[in-house]
């Protein structure tokens, strides 16, 4: 077998694997949408109801509207923060980097509970303070409040995408504009924006798709007050009596169509983005720090405010909730206790779930990194119909609501040895988060010019060697980002796990959800704090490793530290 044929065989086998992981649950959903609820026969009744009647028009338009607001605002704010971090080099860079990414430690549901505690009318902690100072109060239980919370929790993803692009953009272009007399704003609009708009478009589309699927935050804020969204409709049909998972699947198809359209646009944006390759054999020079400029101070303040709103304040609120059995707007120190946190740490069900969660996190993260890198590599470096199809299949689950992925897995695996084992939870993670990690590796690989690969190939290196010796070292930053996102997402995943856990495979988010469902917010918040602490520890370790690597690199090659450490990432160190 010659090399080309063996390559195609390997691609085909890989496609089959990805199809099994990401495609089959979606296929089983499609089949589910044309089955009667008891699975005994086939029907188009639910498809007709969803697509040929007006029943779901209202939730569909509400979903599109909310997702559009969130997609645009998250990208705009993410772009501003990425630009500040990349160009203004604010004070406390590494700490701020970690702070910006911190919301992904927190599940959106927990974050929303934190923000409700802070900003609900009458009794929200912030409102109590504002009222006591005679200032106007805020209402987080509103449409605007919902968009605000969703933007806060999605921003790390958009920041990740845009920070990569901005860091690869050579600052000499902006400096040239400045020399020609352009203001910072006109440089931004006239030079930076035209160069990064494909990344901006990618971000808007990705955030739109993720926002369309999200149900935890609106479920707590606007759904009780008459709003209808597709994600909540799917959740209700799939989990509440009378359960109709066939209709839920049919409704989920609307989201799937939105995703496919979004991914089509994303693919076009990425094609355009490839024109802006910025890492070749010669790396761009990093932007210089700007001393004590007003812009730098203002940039630092903006980033600090974001970190305060997105993680510090909600975590503080969750901490408060863990100390008191009920929150009614009155907090007295005498009523607070560490009892819940202490009992959490000795509760066997918490310890069991923690053990399961850590196993799932480690195994899933390793597999996700490997698979996502290979899918992205095929898409960017080994373009063929097979690799493009593999990329499409890996991307499909991105906007299928988690609960429907769970339903798909249930249909697919029930009755097999995988069902009721921890392995099925790992498979869910692979299916759900592969699309996000593929995006990350794709963005990283796009920035690597082909000259490096070609030079190595001319020197006789095999593709394996090129990957091992050139691509992976240059993608260290991307790998760090991807690992962080994979770990946090797999530790927080709830909606699909909640359908498939058993007494022997329960994970922390399921336990948190169950305590929340019981109204035991104190215990749920205590477990959430444990979860956040684990993630904070992991991220600190990654941050310290990054810092240590940076210092070594600087001592070895002080003239061009960037080239020594590879691609920057949201978690990468300051230059």
């Amino acid at each position, binding site marked *: 077998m010659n090399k080309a044929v063996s390559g195609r065989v390997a691609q085909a086998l890989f496609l089959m694997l990805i199809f099994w992981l990401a495609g089959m649950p979606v296929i089983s959903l499609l089949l589910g949408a044309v089955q009667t609820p008891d699975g005994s026969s086939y029907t188009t009744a639910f498809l007709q109801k969803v697509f040929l009647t007006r029943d779901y028009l209202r939730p569909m338009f509400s979903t599109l509207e909310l997702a559009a607001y969130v997609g645009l605002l998250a990208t705009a704010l993410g772009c501003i923060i990425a630009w500040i971090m990349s160009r203004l080099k604010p004070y406390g860079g590494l700490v701020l980097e970690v702070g910006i990414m911190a919301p992904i430690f927190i599940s959106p549901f927990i974050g929303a509970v934190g923000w409700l505690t802070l900003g609900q009318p009458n009794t929200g902690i912030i409102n109590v303070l504002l009222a006591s100072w005679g200032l106007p109060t805020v209402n987080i239980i509103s449409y605007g409040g919902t968009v605000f919370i969703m933007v806060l929790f999605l921003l790390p993803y958009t920041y990740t995408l845009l920070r990569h692009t901005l860091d690869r953009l050579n600052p000499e272009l902006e400096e040239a504009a400045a020399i020609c007399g352009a203001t910072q704003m006109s440089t931004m609009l006239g030079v930076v924006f035209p160069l990064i708009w494909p990344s901006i478009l990618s971000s808007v589309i990705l955030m739109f798709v993720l926002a369309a699927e999200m149900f935890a935050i609106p479920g707590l804020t606007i759904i009780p007050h008459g709003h209808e969204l597709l994600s909540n409709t799917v959740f209700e049909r799939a989990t509440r009596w009378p359960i109709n998972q066939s209709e839920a699947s049919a409704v989920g198809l609307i989201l799937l169509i939105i995703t496919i359209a979004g991914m089509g646009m994303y693919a076009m944006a990425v094609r355009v983005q490839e024109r802006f390759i910025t890492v070749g054999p010669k790396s761009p020079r990093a932007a210089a720090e700007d001393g004590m400029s007003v812009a730098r101070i203002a940039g630092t303040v903006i980033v600090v405010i974001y970190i305060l709103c997105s993680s510090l304040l909600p975590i503080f609120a969750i901490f408060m909730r863990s100390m008191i059995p009920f929150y009614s707007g009155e907090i007295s120190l005498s009523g607070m206790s560490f009892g819940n946190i202490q009992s959490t740490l000795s509760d066997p069900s918490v310890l069991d779930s923690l053990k399961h969660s850590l196993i799932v996190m480690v195994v899933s993260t390793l597999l996700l990194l490997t698979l996502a890198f290979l899918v992205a590599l095929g898409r960017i470096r080994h373009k063929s119909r097979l690799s493009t199809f593999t990329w499409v299949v890996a991307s499909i689950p991105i906007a299928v609501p988690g609960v429907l992925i769970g339903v798909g897995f249930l249909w697919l695996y029930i*009755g097999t040895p995988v069902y009721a084992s921890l392995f099925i939870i790992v498979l869910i993670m692979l299916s759900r988060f592969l699309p996000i990690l593929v995006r990350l590796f794709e963005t990283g690989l796009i920035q690597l010019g082909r000259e490096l690969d070609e030079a190595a190939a001319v020197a006789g290196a095999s593709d394996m060697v090129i990957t091992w010796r050139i691509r992976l070292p240059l993608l260290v930053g991307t790998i760090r980002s991807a690992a962080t996102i994979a770990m946090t997402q797999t530790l927080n995943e709830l909606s699909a796990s909640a359908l498939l856990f058993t007494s022997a495979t329960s994970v922390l988010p399921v336990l948190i959800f169950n305590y929340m469902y019981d109204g035991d917010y104190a215990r749920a918040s205590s477990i959430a704090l444990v979860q956040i602490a684990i993630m904070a520890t992991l991220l600190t370790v990654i941050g310290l490793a990054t810092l240590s690597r940076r210092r070594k690199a600087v001592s070895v090659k002080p003239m061009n530290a960037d080239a020594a450490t590879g691609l920057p990432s949201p978690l990468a160190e300051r230059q």
Partner: protein
Amino acid sequence: MKKVLLGAAMFVAAAGTALAQERVAITPDLVAKAQAEGEVTLLYGSPLITMQAIIADFNKAYPKIRVNLERRSGAAGAQSVIKEKRAGVRRIDVVQSTEVESAGDMIREGLFTPFVPENIDSFKPIASGLAPHLYAPSTIRSVVMYNPKLVTEAEVERLRNWDGILDPAFKGRISVVEPSIGAAAAPLLYIMNNPELGADFLKKLKAQKPAIYLNSTLGREAVTSAQQAISIFSQFDSIAMSDFVRGSPVRFLYPNPTVEYAGSNWGILASAPHPNAARLLIAWIMSTEGGIAFQGPLSNSRSTLKDLGDTRTVLAKLAETPWYKEPTELWKPDMQDWVTNFGKYQDTWLDIMKRSN
């Protein structure tokens, strides 16, 4: 039609064939066999700490039997065992259902082993509403929860009558819960079976612009945090009492009449992989010790055993408050009506309260 037939079949089965069912009692032989099996898996819907406390009491009596607790509330739990049965998976032994609607689905699927507890004559009739498939060792009662900072004493008195909530003074201050869970289903049965209330009452309630939550907890949380003054038709006394013990600022009252229903129905799966341990667990649940466990401080429900007094310690504490009053009149839903007609009632509710938006 299927549900009508199911309802009829259930009650014929309950009435006519009870004597022919397997009788379940704690015997030395059953204990020995259960201990040989060593474990039992319970799928349940009650709050975590409630079930952990009850099972801790069971384990005091039978420490050699490990109980694997799997919490999957309501319809999601029922759906999971139905799917497992269709796929031939044998994993769960005992089901505790908090929803009569989804319990009806499981009975229709033929999931349960029909049985009769040996001491069935010691129970009130309400315990056998879903017999011979499931039995209810305890009951709960519907309450109205309110935030005393947002509701005056005069308003509290108005809330004691069902139509009191229609007072214009309550407009925009009420929260309800979608009747897709047991706690919200039972009051809807009363509304739909009362000619003075019915759909017309729901239309008037809709005009009061209530917030509609997906579950009781969110409704309760909204009242606790003063987002809403009142939570109606989804709260129940056992949870209200447990919250009271834990220091909740929220108060509750029993509307007149008060809906009392079996909120915890237990059955043995026909495919139980640990059939003896399952029978032992059920037999203990239906024993006096089990009844006392249900009346324990983390459960606070009311045993259906005729001769077991009310041992709930919370009652003494409640009696010291100026606001707590026992219910004056009880209304118990007809289980056949619940299983047969609830889907219709739920549709009416959704049409009026949600789909008309």
